């Protein structure tokens, strides 16, 4: 039977007890939801609201990377490039054509998706390592193109004066908590979309490719097409995250989304649990709040991210909330009988 070493099973029991008791789990989830919604209203300083906004944003970025790395098994370490593409598209459309956030974000997703296709199509035919290399190169190329194409991106001067999102004439800022609710809604939409994709034939195809690509091919799955689909969807959602961030900070230059952002996103996915969704929320919450809480540690935070990657791979590769969940398989609606 499965060998379980002593160190990690304390964490497993804690997580299992939560899962087993359905009532407690649902109570916990809606508790978290109410806290999330009430936050801006209970008079917390706008700084803390901003921390929670960033947690939600990085949860979106983590979920998108999780789609290609956690569910489809292809490691991408250039996702900051898609944030930059989404960010620049939305910024330029907003500054030059005065497009409001809703439309510019959609365009940002489309452009990021197209570039995901351009990078993904040639390299996803090959074994995993080549995609990782290409995405690393891609992240750097985007930064350099942003720096060199002054005519388009303003080069090192960047793009400033981006307007904040306006919904029904009401400007959303961190002060009035508007941005916080916007990112919560986006997080909800992205989570729903990914949940729908994973609980379907496409999600099963992704996971089959992750577990054994050759066997998946022989089950009739067109692995290249599905890997590209997963990569494009992941790029689009990351572009959306980039677009939101740019409208929050109202400024973007080539160094806004550098390699450190890619590493942060992959650390969130690894720490929380590859191939799960709840793991990503936990990973984002931990990794975004810890530099704020432990001020002295913020100087060492990059080393800590590095350590997380190494130690997690060594001791708990499936991440805190990852691994084989004990919950029974969630039958589609209409099928009774608890086949445990």
């Amino acid at each position, binding site marked *: *039977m*499965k060998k379980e070493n002593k160190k990690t099973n304390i964490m497993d029991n804690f997580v299992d007890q939560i899962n087993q008791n359905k009532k407690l789990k649902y109570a916990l989830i809606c508790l978290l939801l109410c806290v999330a919604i009430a936050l801006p209203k209970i008079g917390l300083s706008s700084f803390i609201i901003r921390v929670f906004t960033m947690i939600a944003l990085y949860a979106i970025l983590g979920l998108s990377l999780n789609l290609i790395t956690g569910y489809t098994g292809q490691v991408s370490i250039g996702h900051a490039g898609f944030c930059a593409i989404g960010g620049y598209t939305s910024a330029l459309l907003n500054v030059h054509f005065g497009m409001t956030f809703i439309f510019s974000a959609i365009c940002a997703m489309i452009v990021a998706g197209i570039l995901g296709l351009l990078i993904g199509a040639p390299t996803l035919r090959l074994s995993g390592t080549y995609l990782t290399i290409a995405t690393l190169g891609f992240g750097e190329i985007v930064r350099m193109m942003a720096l060199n194409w002054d005519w388009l991106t303003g080069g090192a001067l960047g793009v400033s004066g981006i307007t904040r999102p306006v919904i029904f004439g009401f400007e959303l800022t961190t002060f009035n908590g508007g941005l916080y609710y916007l990112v919560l809604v986006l997080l909800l939409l992205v989570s729903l*979309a990914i949940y*729908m*994709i994973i609980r*379907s*034939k*496409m999600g*099963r*195809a992704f*996971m*089959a490719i*992750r*577990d*054994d690509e*050759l*066997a*998946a*091919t*022989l*089950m*009739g*799955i*067109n692995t290249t097409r599905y890997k590209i689909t997963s990569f494009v969807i992941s790029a689009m959602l990351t572009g959306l995250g980039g677009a939101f961030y740019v409208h929050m900070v109202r400024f973007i230059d080539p160094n806004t989304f550098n390699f450190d952002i890619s590493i942060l996103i992959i650390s969130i996915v690894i720490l929380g649990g590859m*191939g799960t969704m709840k793991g990503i929320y936990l990973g984002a919450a931990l990794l975004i709040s810890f530099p704020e809480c432990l001020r002295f540690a913020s100087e060492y935070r990059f080393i800590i991210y590095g350590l997380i990657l190494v130690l997690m791979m060594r001791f708990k590769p499936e991440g805190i909330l990852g691994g*084989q969940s004990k*919950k*029974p*398989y969630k*039958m*589609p*609606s*209409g*099928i009774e009988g608890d*086949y*445990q």
Partner: protein
Amino acid sequence: MKTKNKLLLEVQNLSISFGGLKAVDEVTFKVHEGEIVSIIGPNGAGKTTIFNLLTGIYKSDSGKVVFDGEEIQNRTPQEIVKAGIARTFQNIRLFKEMRVIENVLTGMHINTDYNFVDLLFRTKKFRTIEKEKTLKAIEILDSIGLADKISDYPSNLPYGDQRRLEIARAIATDAKIIILDEPAAGMNPQESEELLQFIKTLVQKGYTILLIEHDMSVVMNVSDRIYVIDHGRKVAEGLPEEIANNKLVIEAYLGKEVEDCA
């Protein structure tokens, strides 16, 4: 002897060479519907290579493969599975981090036809197809006695169950012919006896099976016809009894008798 019904799979002088070495040399054989045909031969004779050619992993140098009236040699693995040929692997290749039922559902991938919009917005079409496929998967798992392990993970199952799950996944593709690549490999006598019974139940259900196997006890007592391959060439074919005492077959396995050792 089974009545000769429809010819399902016909392989005509199929061959492939890897850098000068003729791994498979002009092999020809037939499989009829509802039949169990076995291919036996010493290790490295080229049996698995033949299967890899059949299922599109390698591209053959020459020869034709006609399946259910359609030429399928050198087509992509996806097209061949859609045509109706499913297979298992010598070393079990299940999807370890997916549930047992999800492994079977993945087998049904080619026949679950709803598109991205259906799955994203959970349309009625999506819900009906998912429900129908899940029920079918449960039924298949029930038929192979794994109904109580639906939510479990393959890596937690005993070896025999894993092999049966792999076969169940192949069945789930609604294949007309199932290729079993040394299913009894690494099994103790008791497990291979269970496997033998299981294959027999499959035959009763009308599945056509192409079997590669070493375990003579399984081959001799379940196959309708047997082909013997040695050094990439077909050396013999016929009924199990004929093959059992065919001189060439014994030589291929045990080597030549030395006539006059002085």
